[in-house]
């Protein structure tokens, strides 16, 4: 009997803990800001006011391969400007994964939590277009500026007849708060289609995608332009990359249909370049793709089969920009592990850079005081000619980058490295 009573008490305590934990989950995070401030205050005479630039990225489980390096870029950019006019600027990361998969519900909760903290004035993210659809309406009502390094779905910002939902439906206040630096799928896919037909002089292309929002969207747009400008689609597959690693049947079908090139609507995180590796000995044709394959991970995955690969990059040639080289070097000192750097690290760096720049201008405009969230949005909108590591930025009324440059890169040498080839501007 004695033991029973003990166990019931345990249950009662457990239930009480549940109730307490309900808040613990949230408040723990909210109190961090002030706690960190006081901790810092002990060592340096910290300024009173603080501005937080948050991020919302998938940073655990399988999606961490996309999210963690991206978060590093944003964190590094914010750390470059610790204070401005006596106002502290800090970075606070949020994670939108549940059991390792990005989750719009978790993303929405994160944005609500950001809104509850008046110090949060802008956020970098989200990484996935679906998460963006859940977050934009909430952030819109709280006038929180969002800056995504990687969302490319065209319907997030522009109105096409096939779009559902329409961009306006995601913005209940009617004002825009969402910006991105990546060119939409309607730019990147067609650019590579033109390149394949006009420059590489190839017409028969096999296409695959990872069946995710980015990969499938960019592949669809590639196919649209390819078939409307005289090219032929030999075969197309949308793989479930989480459950498959065998692409040889697709490669053989492409070979049988006489494909002269492959287009990968995927990223190196979704096994794009493992397809390249498996092409060895079966089909030796150029391998093309979007910016998602333009990283070292892709070259590693491709193994020995790295020749003849091409990708489009929404930004111009970063190597031409000496500031970028210095930033990259500094980043590698701060984050020495190879896995700290990914395809979206520097786009995220630029996102945070734009936000910090906008916050600074908003502080100036507000007479050296902490600005309102709407003032930050206005300042982001007014960004012009800001030079980042992978591009020069200004935004149109939709939140899309104005006059983006599209660059073509290819692999060169052994061991292969990505090399800049040419660039052109898109309107």
């Amino acid at each position, binding site marked *: 009997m004695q033991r029973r009573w003990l166990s019931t008490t345990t249950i009662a305590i457990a239930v009480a803990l549940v109730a307490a934990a309900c808040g613990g989950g949230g408040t723990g995070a909210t109190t961090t800001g002030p706690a960190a401030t006081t901790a810092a205050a002990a060592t340096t005479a910290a300024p009173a006011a603080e501005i937080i630039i948050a991020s919302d990225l998938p940073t655990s*489980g399988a*999606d961490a391969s996309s999210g963690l390096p991206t978060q590093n870029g944003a964190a590094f950019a914010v750390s470059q400007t610790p204070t401005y006019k006596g106002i502290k600027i800090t970075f606070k990361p949020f994670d939108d994964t549940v059991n390792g998969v990005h989750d719009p519900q978790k993303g929405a909760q994160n944005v609500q939590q950001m809104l509850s903290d008046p110090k949060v004035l802008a956020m970098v993210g989200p990484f996935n277009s679906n998460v963006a659809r859940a977050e934009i309406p909430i952030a819109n009502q709280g006038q929180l500026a969002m800056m995504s390094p990687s969302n490319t779905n065209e319907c997030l910002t522009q109105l096409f007849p096939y779009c559902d939902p329409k961009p306006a439906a995601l913005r209940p206040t009617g004002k825009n708060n969402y910006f991105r630096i990546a060119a939409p799928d309607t730019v990147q896919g067609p650019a590579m289609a033109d390149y394949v037909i006009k420059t590489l002089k190839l017409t028969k292309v096999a296409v695959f995608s990872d069946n995710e929002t980015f990969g499938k969207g960019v592949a669809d747009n590639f196919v649209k332009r390819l078939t409307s400008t005289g090219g032929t689609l030999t075969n197309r597959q949308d793989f479930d990359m989480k459950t*498959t690693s065998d692409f*040889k*049947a697709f490669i*053989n*079908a492409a070979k*049988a249909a006489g494909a002269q090139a492959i287009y990968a609507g995927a990223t190196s995180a979704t096994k794009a370049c493992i397809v390249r*590796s498996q092409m060895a000995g079966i089909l030796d044709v150029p391998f093309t793709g979007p910016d998602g394959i333009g990283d070292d991970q892709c070259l590693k995955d491709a193994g020995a089969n790295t020749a003849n690969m091409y990708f489009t990059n929404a930004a111009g040639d970063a190597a031409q920009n000496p500031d970028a080289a210095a930033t990259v070097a500094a980043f590698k000192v701060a984050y020495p592990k190879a896995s700290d750097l990914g395809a979206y690290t520097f786009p995220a760096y630029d996102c945070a850079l734009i936000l910090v720049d906008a916050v600074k201008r908003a502080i100036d405009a507000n007479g050296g005081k902490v600005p309102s969230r709407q003032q930050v949005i206005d300042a982001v909108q007014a960004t012009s000619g800001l030079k980042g590591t992978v591009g020069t930025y200004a935004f149109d009324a939709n939140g899309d980058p104005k006059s983006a440059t599209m660059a073509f890169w290819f692999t060169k040498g052994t061991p292969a490295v990505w090399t800049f080839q040419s660039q052109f501007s898109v309107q």
Partner: protein
Amino acid sequence: MVSSLARVRGRLLAGSRGRVLNGILLILIAAALVLVATRAIALGPAYFIQIVVYGLADGSIYALIALGYTMVYGIVELINFAHGDVFTLGGFVSLWLIPIFGLEEAKSVGPGIIIPLVAILVISMLVCGVVNVAIERVAYRPLRHAPRLAPLITAVGMSFVLEGLMFLWRGPFNLHYPNLLPADSISLGGSASIAYKDIAVIVIALGLMTALSLFVERSKLGKAMRATAQDRDAAGLMGIDINRTIAATFFIGALLAGAGGMIYGLYFTSIAFDLGFSAGLYAFTAAVFGGIGNIQGAAIGGLLIGIVRVIVDGYFDSAWTDVVVFALLVLVLVFRPTGIMGMRVPEK
């Protein structure tokens, strides 16, 4: 008493209604075959042979994992969700050992690599075996008499723990696995060919599986395993050390999974920490296809899944591959509730 009642009822059910169901099954199979055949004829026999070769290679890897599932289920009636992650661990351990043994991609070629490769294979298998036994000891054995679903939850927990450890070890990215097997291939007529890689995978997997089924059929420990699977208490009364037998089952299952992990790496030249989740799901499906608890059945189930996958990938739309595989699983169970190979599951 209860179980004999159930058997009578089962036999009654299998009577006239069973015949009708089997008829429907035959018609469905025929329709599917006709559909595949029309596509296959259009694309030529060479292509068909080619993709079936790939299917067999993929399938042998699934089969290796499925054996562990089926053995563990047979003996403790537990869906061991951590098994897929033990498979991934095999890949990770062998990837770590490859440079230690001085092997390098594109530099180490020729028959000289066979001995270090076998050594790596054996060590990875043993590591996986020990880890799996440890998991059984810590997470499953204490719950052997707990409610039936409790060990299922610890299995999910152990799966997260293993994934978490591998994540910490090598990070979240796809890891490139050195391409050590020769790229040459033998022509099979027309444009079809079979690479040495494919042959190696199929031969190693089949070899290991044959060894296992011989072991279970012939050895004393194997006999103890079968006895324990049939009736644990009676086996215990006959002097079989139940704990040792169950631990041995986990050990052997993990040996095969570990081998599967290394073979997967060599074959696909890439592994990732979360690979085990989907690989495990497929292997488990394979085990069910073959009639869970049935060792030969699991092997055949694995090969079948490999072939079905490449046929959908190769002739139809790969976005539907998983739907087809799982729909097939549902159909198989509806028409042949104990798997294609059938197995009398003790009613409990």
